[in-house]
């Protein structure tokens, strides 16, 4: 074991993969730290599994290299890499008991006999399945199988465990429980977890850092709060949580963003933005303040926008209001249920309202060349709010 604290657990350099003419992972560089809970988040088919399989060695990269703990492993076969994978199907050996499934790696790697039992018991204790040691996988529930798979993956104390959508097959309630369990176990065993998911909520709650992927490219790598509060692109903004996006251009004085049909809006324009350059404005629904248009005269906030309340949707913990702006774009505003929402109850549907936000909450993102189409569909298509 090379214990230099500098070398990251996993380092990918220019790693890329093509299947025939189809480049499914664009060349990417990534460093994952020791004991980090690192999530890879992206829509279906963006190359997450392929990336994982290149790290494990199941798939040979078309280019670039993989380093584990500072050592290049390009010519090291899967069985000799100091990492384990937790498969989405769990891949438990159906003919072996829970105990033997967990002991598999120790037996194959010829761990001394007297050590095996203690380590298997420890691993089973970690996932709280000691009482199930003699069962066959077929006699376990989905959540229990998932935990056996985890015990089997960590029993050999690998430096890295890769988890490919491990909670995908579980129901909503069990998922929530297992999210906390996984996080607890990761802290207990002190192993780097690389966690693949297409569930943004899961990634936000569990990760130390998140890499957002789309079409084989890593778009942003950052902490959950940074990904949420400071998305680097329109894709990240709308993929993580819901987000209102408006296309416009930096105003002449460089202090706001001019959106066609709405005028100049309040925004956090970066100092180096060129006046007149095309940008996308991204505003989280919960950062928008909704007020009845009648109060405009009294408290007209700077840079507010007028609109018409189209409808409201009750989601339990919050209300979502859809407001049609003068430019025909529909913006989403979310208000926690309770007093604030109750105060807005008096506004009838169809009434004129005013939307406002703090400049710092309106992120200015580079305009996506491809998305000059009306942005109205974006907020409506991502209604589930984080």
């Amino acid at each position, binding site marked *: 074991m090379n214990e230099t604290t500098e070398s990251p657990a996993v380092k990918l350099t220019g790693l890329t993969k093509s299947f025939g003419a189809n480049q499914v992972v664009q060349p990417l560089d990534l460093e994952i730290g020791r004991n980090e809970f690192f999530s890879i988040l992206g829509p279906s088919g963006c190359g997450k599994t392929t990336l994982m399989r290149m790290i*494990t060695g*199941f798939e040979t990269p078309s280019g670039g290299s993989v380093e584990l703990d500072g050592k290049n492993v390009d010519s090291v076969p*899967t*069985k*000799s890499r100091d990492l*384990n*994978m937790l*498969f989405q*199907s769990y*891949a438990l*050996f*159906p*003919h072996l*008991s829970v105990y033997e499934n967990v002991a*598999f*790696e120790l037996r*194959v*790697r010829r761990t001394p006999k007297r050590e095996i039992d203690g380590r298997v018991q420890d691993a089973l204790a970690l996932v709280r399945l000691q009482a199930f040691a*003699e*069962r*066959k996988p*077929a*006699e376990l529930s989905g959540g229990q199988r998932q935990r056996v798979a985890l015990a*089997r993956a960590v029993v*050999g104390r690998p430096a890295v465990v890769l988890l490919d959508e491990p909670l995908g097959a579980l129901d909503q309630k069990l998922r929530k429980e297992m999210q906390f369990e996984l996080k607890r176990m990761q802290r207990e065993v002190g192993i780097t977890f690389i966690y693949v998911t297409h569930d943004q909520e899961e990634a936000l709650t569990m990760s130390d850092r998140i890499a957002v992927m789309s079409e084989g490219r890593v778009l942003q790598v950052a902490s959950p709060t940074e990904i949420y509060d400071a998305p680097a692109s329109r894709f990240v903004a709308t993929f993580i949580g819901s987000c209102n996006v408006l296309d416009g251009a930096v105003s002449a004085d460089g202090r706001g963003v001019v959106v066609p049909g709405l005028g100049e809006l309040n925004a956090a324009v970066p100092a180096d933005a060129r006046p007149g350059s095309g940008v996308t404005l991204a505003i989280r629904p919960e950062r928008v303040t909704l007020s009845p248009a009648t109060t405009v005269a009294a408290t007209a906030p700077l840079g507010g926008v007028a609109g018409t309340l189209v409808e409201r949707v009750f989601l339990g913990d919050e209300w979502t209001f859809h407001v049609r702006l003068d430019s025909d774009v529909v913006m989403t505003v979310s208000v926690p249920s309770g007093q604030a929402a109750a105060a807005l109850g008096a506004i009838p549907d169809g009434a004129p309202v005013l939307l406002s936000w703090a400049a710092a909450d309106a992120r200015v993102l580079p305009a996506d060349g491809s998305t000059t189409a009306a942005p109205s569909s974006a907020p409506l298509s991502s209604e589930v709010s984080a």
Partner: protein
Amino acid sequence: MDRLTSWIARAVFLFLYLPIAALIVYSFNSSEVSYRFDGFTFRWYAELFADRMLLEALRTSAVVGVIAALVATVIGFLTAFALVRFRVKGRAFFVGAILIPLIVPEIVLGVSLLTVFSTAGIPTGLLTLVLGHVVITLPLATLVLMGAMSSLDPSLTEAATDLGASPWVTFRRVLFPLLRPSILAAFLLSFTTSFSNIVISTFTAGVGTTTLPLRIYSTLRTGLTPELNALGTLLVVATLGVILAVGVSQMRRILAGPTTTP
């Protein structure tokens, strides 16, 4: 209606098992002709064990059957693994090609095998018999194993590799235990196919390597003897023994599942 179908079922049952019952009964018949039952005797069994030619043929068939079935099962396993697991180029072609020996009339296969052997200067004998029988049993074994393998989760072998197992250890600890019933089925199917084959054997057997079916067929000229009934009875008993052995171990597997809870 119900009564009718149950009568039909009984008739079918009778039709299937009457010949076997007759075989067993007449193997103990002291008369030399089969239309009369004169009394009980072990004479035909004694004659059978004195018939060197017939025993020699039985031995040849058993040896050829075991070797051909072993070869077919091993190669069939590897072929099935390659076709199920890897995106081999021209996979569909290979799967189709494997089926062809099952469809081509055996007589055609027999003629072409003999042509190949005589062109290559291989004298007919044990080797050519085994090769000929592998041609017809390999497709069967491959098909049986392909079916079983494609129902296995492909990530099982990857998981084993990931946990440090070499290909051999993966086979021994994961694939073999899970596929054992199908491997056994492939072997037995190949063996019985080889054991009862007559057409391919006609072309590939040489002097001194006459198989049992060929031997029996040739005695037709001199007329069937009750000795053959005795042989048939012994084969039926052996078959029952195999079925029971496999059946019992299968039963144990099935029962072993839910009873391992402490």
